[in-house]
C-alpha cells in the first residue's frame, strides 16, 4: 500500500499537471471494502429477521444428559456453534445478541451525529460566543471519562435499551461535535466560501449549500467508525453487568463465558460472541477507513 503512495506523490510533487494528465486513477475502494460492507449487511439482516429465521429459541435449554452428558456441549450438528453452560444454543443467542448491540450502536451514532454534527458545523462557521459556549460544554463532556459517565447514568436509571442508546448518544456528541467543528473550520477558510459571501449569500445559505455538502461526506465516513466505537462501548457496559437487563447482548455473552473455569473447559462460549463482535467492529472500521481514504479526507484525522 505504501509503495503506490510514492508514485502518485512523486508525480504530484514533481509535476502536478503531469499527475492529472497521467490519469492516475482515483484510489478504488478495493475488494476489502465490499467484503466489509457485505459482512455488515449480513449481520444487520440476520438481526432484523432473526425471529423468522429457522433458529432455535435462544433461551430454551436443550439438555441431553444421555447423549452428550452435562452441558456445555461443543459445536455439533444440531448446535453449530455449541451451547453455553445452560445448554442454550450459542448461534441463536449470538444472532439475537446482535439485535441489541447494533440498535444501540446505530442509534447512538445517529443521535451523536445529528446533535453534535449540527452544533459543530454551526459553531465552526459562526464562531463568536456560540462557538465558545458549545466548545466549553464539549470540553466538559470530553474531560469526563466516558465509561464512568456511562456507568453513572445507567446505574442511576432503569437500564432499558432506550436509556443505554441515549447515554451512548450523549457521549458521542462531544467527539463528533469537535470533528464537525474542525471540518467546518477548514472549509469555512476556503476561498469558495469567501466567494459565496461576496455574492451576497446569507450565512444560513452558506452553511446549508456550501459547508454542509462538503462536511457531510467526511462525516459519513466517520459515522461507520463511530458506530463501531458505540458497539464496543455497549459491550464494555455489558461486560461490567450494566447493560440491558432483559435480553442478551454480545457483551453479556462474553461476560458469561469469560471466567477462567469456563475458558478452560468451553472456550467457545466466550470466543463465539467475541468473534461476532470483533468481525463486525473490524468491518465497520475498515469500511469507514476506506471511505475516508476514498474521499481523501486528510484534515480529519480521527
Amino acid at each position, binding site marked *: 500500500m505504501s509503495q503506490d503512495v510514492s508514485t502518485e506523490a512523486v508525480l504530484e510533487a514533481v509535476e502536478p*499537471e503531469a499527475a492529472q494528465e497521467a490519469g492516475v486513477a482515483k484510489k478504488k475502494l478495493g475488494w476489502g471494502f465490499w467484503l466489509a460492507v457485505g459482512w455488515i449487511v449480513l449481520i444487520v439482516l440476520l438481526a432484523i429477521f432473526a425471529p423468522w429465521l429457522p433458529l432455535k429459541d435462544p433461551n430454551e435449554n436443550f439438555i441431553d444428559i444421555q447423549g452428550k452428558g452435562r452441558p456445555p456441549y461443543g459445536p455439533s450438528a444440531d448446535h453449530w456453534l455449541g451451547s453455553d453452560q445452560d445448554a442454550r444454543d450459542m448461534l441463536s443467542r449470538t444472532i439475537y445478541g446482535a439485535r441489541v448491540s447494533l*440498535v444501540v450502536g*446505530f*442509534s447512538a451514532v*445517529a*443521535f451523536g451525529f*445529528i446533535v453534535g454534527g449540527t452544533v459543530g458545523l454551526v459553531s465552526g462557521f459562526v464562531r463568536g460566543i456560540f462557538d465558545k459556549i458549545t466548545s466549553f460544554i464539549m470540553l466538559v463532556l470530553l474531560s469526563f471519562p466516558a465509561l464512568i459517565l456511562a456507568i453513572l447514568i445507567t446505574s442511576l436509571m432503569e437500564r432499558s*435499551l*432506550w436509556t443505554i*442508546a441515549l447515554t451512548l448518544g450523549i457521549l458521542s456528541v462531544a467527539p463528533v461535535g469537535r470533528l464537525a467543528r474542525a471540518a467546518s473550520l477548514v472549509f469555512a477558510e*476556503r*476561498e*469558495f466560501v*469567501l*466567494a*459565496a*459571501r*461576496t*455574492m*451576497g*449569500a*446569507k450565512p*444560513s*445559505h452558506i452553511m*446549508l*449549500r*456550501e459547508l*454542509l*455538502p*462538503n462536511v457531510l*461526506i467526511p462525516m459519513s465516513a466517520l459515522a461507520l467508525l463511530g458506530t463501531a466505537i458505540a458497539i464496543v462501548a455497549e459491550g464494555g457496559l455489558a461486560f461490567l453487568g450494566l447493560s440491558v437487563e432483559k435480553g442478551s447482548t454480545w457483551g453479556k455473552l462474553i461476560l458469561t463465558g469469560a471466567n477462567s473455569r469456563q475458558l478452560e473447559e468451553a472456550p467457545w462460549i466466550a470466543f463465539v460472541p467475541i468473534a461476532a463482535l470483533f468481525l463486525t467492529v473490524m468491518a465497520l472500521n475498515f469500511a469507514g477507513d476506506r471511505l475516508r481514504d476514498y474521499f481523501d479526507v486528510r484534515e480529519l484525522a480521527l
Partner: protein
Amino acid sequence: MAGTGKAHLRDASDILLRVEDMVVEFPVDRRSVVHAVSGISFDVAKGETLGLVGESGCGKSTTAKAIIQIPRPTSGTVNFQGTDLNTLDDAELRAMRSQIQMIFQDPIASLNPRRTVRRIVSEGLVVSNTTVSKPGWALLGLAVILAVAAGFTSLWVLLAGLLAGLAGGFIILKGVFRPSIGGCSDERVDEIITAVGLDPVEAAKRRPHEYSGGQCQRVSVARTLVLDPEIVICDEPVSALDVSVQAQILNMLEDMKERYGITLVFISHDLSVVRNVSDRLAVMYLGKMCEIGDSDLIYAQPAHPYTQVLLAALPDPTNPHAGAVDALDSELPSPINPPSGCRFRTRCPRAEAICAEQEPQIAQVGTGDQWVACHFPLADGS
C-alpha cells in the same frame, strides 16, 4: 512615499468608486497591531481598469477585500455610486453585493468542489434574488422534531423517525433549494458560459476538479458576469497560471470588459501583466501609496524611486529599464512597527534626513495624470 493627501482624486461625473483615507489594521496581540493599509486614497472611473501593483506584504489584497467589506476597513470611506459602503448594515450591503464582484488567485480553490460547474455559475442568481430558504428551514426543523418526539414511545420508532427525518430533510434540501431558475436566466447562464470560452453542455455535467486552472478561472469570471456587476476586483487572477494560459485569460478579460461594460480593479505583483491590462496604475509599498496615474506615463518615466527599482528588477526579456538601478539588498521592514516618515526610506537609494521626519504628500508630476508621494521624485524619470 507614505502618500497621504488626496490631491490626485478626480471629481469627474463618471467616477464609480472613490476610496478615501482607507486604514486597515489587524490586532496581533494586546500590545501590537499590523498596519496592513495606512491611509490609501484612489478612484476608478466607469469602464476604466485600475492596476494595483506592489510586492507581497504591501497591502494590495487587503485593500481589495476592504473595498468589499470582508473584513470591513478600520476607518476611511469607500464611496460606491454615491453610497459609503462602510455605513451600510449587513442586509443593505448584501443587496449591493451583486454590483461589486471579486475573482481570486487560486482558480480551483475558489470553486465549490461538490457542485457542477453550471450550478456554480448560476449560483449567483439563486443567492441574490431568492428568499426561498425560510420555508425550507421550517420544514427541516419540523421533520427533526417529529422524529425525536416519535422516538419517546419506543426505540424502533425513534430509529424509524430519525431515518424519516434525515430523508425528509435531504429531500427538502435538494428540492426546495433548487428553485427552477427563471426562463430568461437559463439562456443568460449559457450565453455567458459560451462567452468566456466554455461549453455549457460540458459544464452541466462536470465538476471543477475535471477542469484545468485556466478553465476554472473562466468559470469564476462567468460566475461574476451572471450578476451583471459594475466593478470586478481581480486579486492576482493569472499569477497561478502558465504563460500561454495567462495570455488566454487576459484576452478573455479584455473581451468581457468591452462586451459587458465592466470596470476592473486588477491586482498583481507582475508589472508586465499590469502594463498590458491597466489604463491607470497605483504602486503600493508597505500599506502606503507611492505613485498613481496613467500607466503609459508611469512606465515611460517612473517618478518614484521604488517604481524605478521594481521596473529595473523585472526579468521581462525586452525590458528597457533592465539594470537601470541595482537590486535592493535589504529586507522588507515589519508592518507591525513601520519606519517613521516615508516607509521606503530604509531601502531608498535617494533617502535624506527629511524622509525620516516628514511624510511626503502626494503631488502632481508635470502636467499629466501622474502623482507621486516623495520628497525627491525622479524629475526626469531617467
